[in-house]
């Protein structure tokens, strides 16, 4: 594969291929940071890939008490799915099981989209007729009595179909430690980019996949071309100095958010250099057949 070199790190002249998604966002607040984070982490747990989880979700950013609607510490959570119906179903389920149940929390809309999802309107019936609606400055909330006080939840949140899922970077290094160091630096940089999340565990995927399988019924299977333990076989695209590959997958509320996130990640990985970090960076694509969004690494280089 033709390569560019930046600060000694080889960059594949390739592109990440991404596809349109439906996305929504919430602000979860609580009396302190711990419980806001607990609610957000629980709600976005088991939301790594739409293939098996129904949605991809993650924490976009932490908000200080000054930045939230109710003046308490908060967390902004994003959730993406392949259809608006899936997004609604997943959001309502996760909200009901993970945020309604979490002590001290309240839920507000984080984005205004072209559509709206009933959120408070869906969980309000938990109040068993003791729930109370309140309209404040044109926005409607439900006060659901719970055992530690009231669960305040906005009646509707925004949903947009302009989201992008599947932006990615393949980080390649000599061993697990240095590859992980570079990948973690990339994830950390992406965390600071607004409107984008890395839904996989800690933001990192080790099981990069290809479409299809030798087995019937498997939609995806291991990306053997990037598996270092298969490097001697003909299908491998790895160089002899690569012993480990990790992937960062990015979902964003917009095309720009994903490219900004990829740019930030790439910059951090390159800044670390090939001695302590990655020797090569690539991107996953399926020859342009998966989706309309293509992020060429050469355009994103610092």
């Amino acid at each position, binding site marked *: 594969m033709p390569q560019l070199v930046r600060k000694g790190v080889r960059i594949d002249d390739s592109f990440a291929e991404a596809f349109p998604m439906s996305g929504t966002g919430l602000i979860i*607040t609580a009396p302190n940071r711990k419980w806001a984070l607990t609610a957000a982490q629980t709600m976005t747990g088991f939301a790594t890939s739409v293939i098996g989880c129904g949605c991809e979700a993650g924490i976009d950013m932490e908000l200080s008490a000054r930045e939230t*609607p*109710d*003046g*308490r510490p908060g967390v902004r959570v994003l959730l993406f799915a392949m259809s608006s119906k899936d997004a609604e179903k997943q959001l309502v389920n996760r909200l009901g099981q993970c945020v309604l149940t979490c002590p001290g929390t*309240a839920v507000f809309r984080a984005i205004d989209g072209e559509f709206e999802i009933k959120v408070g309107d869906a969980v309000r019936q938990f109040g068993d*007729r*003791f729930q*109370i*609606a*309140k*309209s*404040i*400055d044109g926005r409607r*909330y439900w*006060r659901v009595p719970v055992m530690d*006080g*009231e669960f*305040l939840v906005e009646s509707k949140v925004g949903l947009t179909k302009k989201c992008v899922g599947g932006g990615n970077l393949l980080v390649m290094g000599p061993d697990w430690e240095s590859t992980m160091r570079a990948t973690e630096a990339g994830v950390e940089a992406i965390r600071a980019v607004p409107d984008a999340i890395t839904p996989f565990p800690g933001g990192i995927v080790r099981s990069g996949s290809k479409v299809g399988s030798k087995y019937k019924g498997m939609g995806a299977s291991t990306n053997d071309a990037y598996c270092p333990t298969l490097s001697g076989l003909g299908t491998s695209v790895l160089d002899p100095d690569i012993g480990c590959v990790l992937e960062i997958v990015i979902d964003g509320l917009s095309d720009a958010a994903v490219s900004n996130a990829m740019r930030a990640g790439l910059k951090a990985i390159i800044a670390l250099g090939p001695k302590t970090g990655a020797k090569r960076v690539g991107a996953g694509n399926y020859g342009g057949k998966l989706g309309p969004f293509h992020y060429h690494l050469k355009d994103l280089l610092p």
Partner: protein
Amino acid sequence: MKPLLFALRREPEQRLDLSKLTPDRLVGRTVKEIEAIEIGTTKVGARVGDYFKVRSGDPANLHFEGGSERFDLLGAKLLPGFSIYVEGDVGAQLGRNALGGQITVVGDAGPYAASGMAGGHIDIDGDCGDFLGAPLPGEIAGMAGGRIVVRGSAGCRAGDRLRRGVILIEGDVGEDLGSRAIAGTIIALGTAEGRVGYLNKRASLVLAQPVDFGPTYVDCGAHNFTFARLFSKALAEDSRRAARLMTQKLRRFAGDTAVYGKGEILTPA
């Protein structure tokens, strides 16, 4: 652009129906045409020009120089994006059925202010009469949205049959505040009299100075309400005192249990 000005020539001898002087009805009219508008309520008749000196300006912003307690229906059916400013008193039914916009009265208002209002913002610098935000006799529901702020005191039965929206009274209130309220929010910073929240269905009444609510209100303890924090932020521009009240720990009295019982009276704990 300067506002369209109505300068009062003299105290009117009869009650005036000013519902015709809303910005949307005055767009594109000349001063002469405006002065010819019939506003009398008796068989004697009266035109704008009889009582006002009109100076042309932006009809989206009306300015009344001088007021009278005989100015009825001022700002009735006001639409969003328009504003009316009155230097002086106004009469009955200020902002009746208003849908939006801003009305500022630097003076007192008569009874039935904000009656049937569905949106917008009314600010009364002085006192207002009875039946603030209440329905007219025969109507089922009162104010249905928007916000009214009274800097002075309000008369009896403020917020009667309130349907939605916020009523904020910085001064004292007369008897039966929030009587028969259906929903919505009333905040009173002064003293209250009579049966507060009488037959209140679902409304929230926030009182800075608690009184005896009678046996149909039941004490549900003191709590920190997240919705009150939101209200505090929303009210900060209109009234610092009200905003401060809403950030406090509040004692909740649920009621009126004589009716639906989903309403509440909140007082500082």
